[in-house]
């Protein structure tokens, strides 16, 4: 099928980060993917993505602030009239640098807050960062930025979702993303310690729903359920190679953050080809685009144009086959794997389970 128009570029500027979050969305073997694009390379990626139809860019990582050349990329995004969003842990950052980014035209700042309480936050991040995050959020508002707060939810903080909402109100956030961990990569490794119970999730969901109505027009409240607790999976990335184009720190052009960890797929590098060429015709980008690749029950399912078969990485994590129906779907023949994880979560006591922190020691599957 012909390639649709992408709207958002996810620019993963580096996998380096001072935090060690136990649910990091980077690949387990992130240390193998060294930064390969200099500022000129990234500016070219921005230009080529814009020519392809992209109108938004998320500067992310790892920690994008660890790139000293971030400023020149923000300036280029502004020159191209791209809506730019900095997705950051807030570490390391000074008020002066944030002001500089504001003056260069950065549109939005998204700060991760791991928990409403310092001990909960720092336990997930593996570093003492809570107070710095609050400072960054306050600077962002003082400097006139719209502020997004993102909290990844899991069994250890779901019961405090009300406190997270109160903190976001106190910080005058414009948008609050209450995004449950999805069990891929580091979160998959830590799933027994992170997966909530159904009851926990339901309580948090109703608290978030009440806040969404109460704060309508002031703060946008988004609540994302873990795929392990849905009947039908959401459209992962709005479908493979449909709306989002991801470029990894080493220059691979991808449909999602973890596609390069799937075996047997060839993605191509923006150092060798243009964004447009790779988007339209790299073998990896074409692999799961459209419906031809789908197995049953997806192939004849009326939801296939709604969820596009769910998440390929989740299928691979759970079944070893990236082309399988997403086991999160209740119609998947592998759905028992997800049910078993839920049963495990309901039986586990609430006492602390040890985490595996993100580390550069490469994990082999």
């Amino acid at each position, binding site marked *: 099928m012909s390639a649709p*128009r992408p*709207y*958002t570029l996810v620019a993963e500027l580096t996998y380096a980060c001072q935090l060690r979050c136990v649910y990091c969305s980077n690949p387990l073997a992130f240390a193998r993917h060294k930064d390969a694009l200099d500022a000129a390379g990234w500016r070219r990626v921005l230009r080529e993505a814009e020519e392809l*139809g992209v*109108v*938004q860019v998320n500067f992310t990582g790892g920690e994008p602030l660890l790139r000293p050349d971030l400023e020149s990329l923000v300036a280029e995004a502004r020159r191209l*009239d791209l*809506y730019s*969003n900095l997705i950051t842990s807030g570490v390391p950052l000074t008020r002066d640098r944030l002001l500089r980014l504001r003056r260069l035209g950065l*549109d*939005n700042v*998204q700060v991760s807050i791991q928990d409403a309480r310092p001990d909960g936050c720092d336990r997930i991040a593996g570093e003492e960062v809570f107070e710095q995050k609050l400072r960054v959020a306050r600077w962002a508002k003082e400097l*006139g*930025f*719209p502020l*997004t707060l993102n909290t990844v939810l899991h069994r250890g903080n779901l019961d405090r979702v009300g406190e997270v909402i109160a903190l976001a109100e106190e910080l005058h956030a*414009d*948008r609050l993303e209450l995004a449950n961990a999805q069990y891929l990569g580091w979160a998959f490794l830590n799933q027994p310690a992170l997966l909530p119970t159904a009851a926990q999730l339901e309580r948090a969901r109703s608290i978030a729903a009440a806040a969404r109505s109460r704060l*309508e*027009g*002031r*703060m*946008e409240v988004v609540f994302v359920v873990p795929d392990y607790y849905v009947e039908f999976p959401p459209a992962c990335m709005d479908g493979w190679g449909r709306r989002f184009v991801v470029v990894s720190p080493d220059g691979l052009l991808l449909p999602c953050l973890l596609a390069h960890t799937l075996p047997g797929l060839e993605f191509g590098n923006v150092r060798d080809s243009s964004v447009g060429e790779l988007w339209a015709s790299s073998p990896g980008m074409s692999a799961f685009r459209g419906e031809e690749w789908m197995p049953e029950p997806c192939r004849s399912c009326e939801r296939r144009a709604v969820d596009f078969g769910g998440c390929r990485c989740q299928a691979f994590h759970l079944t070893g086959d990236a082309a399988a129906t997403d086991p999160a779907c209740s119609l998947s023949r592998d759905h028992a794997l997800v049910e078993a994880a839920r049963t495990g979560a309901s039986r586990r006591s609430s006492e602390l389970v040890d985490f595996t922190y993100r580390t550069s020691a490469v994990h082999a599957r």
Partner: protein
Amino acid sequence: MIAPEARPALAAKARLRFDQTSGGYLLLYPERGLALNPTAASILKLCDGERTVDGIVEQLQREYGERPAPQLRQDVVDFLDEMARRGLLQVSG
């Protein structure tokens, strides 16, 4: 409902962008975008924090003279209410 003397402006997080591909305007904000029809784009371009709702309706009447005034006013008010509900407008005055 938004008052006739209110002075709406785009929220800090929202930005209008002309889109070469579609030939129309997009309203961009974090993680989202709205494709605007020509009337919606005309309304939002007039939301500069200085013009009142009445002023916006008058200006549009000059541009879209064939529409009956009460109907045009209602359309503008409904649209601005919806934008405010989504947190995409700041309303002062």
